[in-house]
């Protein structure tokens, strides 16, 4: 099995940050702050439009082919779980933003698992860049592929 070279771009998404999607996502995650749902309150708080909730870029799932992506990394979908996810914020994500996210491989490691043989850990990072070329949010995630049981 070949190792994925680091810094390789494994997928790319582009999408608009929409007010309606922010509202749906805020409701689904039980957010109560009306800065996510009421443009007047967002403006009174000093923003151009409503603000997205912290994990909003997860909506990129709508624009991705997760199975195809996992297979392109040479991973077996049924043995893959997401271990960790981290978001780093450079400014509040706002309705009306246009984002481009390029997902790249940061590291690809193998470790001996306790029960199921060799595990593979792939760390990926996605910089979500706005129309001006500035990074708004960086998402990092660690995918864990369990070994095949003997």
């Amino acid at each position, binding site marked *: 099995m070949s190792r994925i070279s680091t810094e390789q771009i494994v997928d790319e998404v582009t999408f608009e940050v929409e007010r309606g*999607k922010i509202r*749906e*996502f*805020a*409701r*689904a*995650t*039980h*957010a*109560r*702050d009306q*800065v*996510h749902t009421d443009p007047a309150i967002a403006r009174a*708080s*000093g*923003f151009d439009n409503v*603000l*997205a*909730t*912290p*994990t909003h870029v*997860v*909506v*990129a*799932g*709508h*624009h*991705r082919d*997760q199975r195809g992506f996992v297979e392109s990394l040479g991973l077996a979908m*049924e043995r893959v*779980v*997401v*271990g*960790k*996810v*981290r*978001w*780093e*914020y450079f400014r*509040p994500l706002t309705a009306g933003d246009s984002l481009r996210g390029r997902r790249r491989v940061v590291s690809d490691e193998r470790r001996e698992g306790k029960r199921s043989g060799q595990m593979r850990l792939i760390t990926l990072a996605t910089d979500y860049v706005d129309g001006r070329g500035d990074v708004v949010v960086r998402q990092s995630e660690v995918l864990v592929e369990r070994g095949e049981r003997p």
Partner: protein
Amino acid sequence: MRSAIPARAGYMLQPRTVGPIALTDIVRFAGAGGDFNPLHHDAETARAAGFPDVIAMGQLHAGMLGSWIADVFGVEHLRSFEVRFAAPVNVGDTLTLTGEVTEVDASASPPVAVLSLAVKRGDDVVLHGKATVAVAS
């Protein structure tokens, strides 16, 4: 931008309780986030994978934890948020979102608080979290 709130090391956040998680909550999140893995809506697929019923996607409770922190501190003050998934969440689970300020870097301008976070089902931690937020001096 709204004013940051003050925080000191040792400050325990007032927990938020969510649930019991209904299948509708999971499906609502699937639609919002675009996660259509059948493990999260099709009981037969979930059972074939060894679960008693559909399980929630980790991003559901990760998102709830993030939105709760944003409600408390203001989303514009959040600097980072991270989660580590420890156990699957099932339909019917009641979750408690908890957090504590473990340290405040007062030398930063504005000061930055480090939060240690957890999503619990009873005494079991199903998700470990950490965040950094700008706070008032």
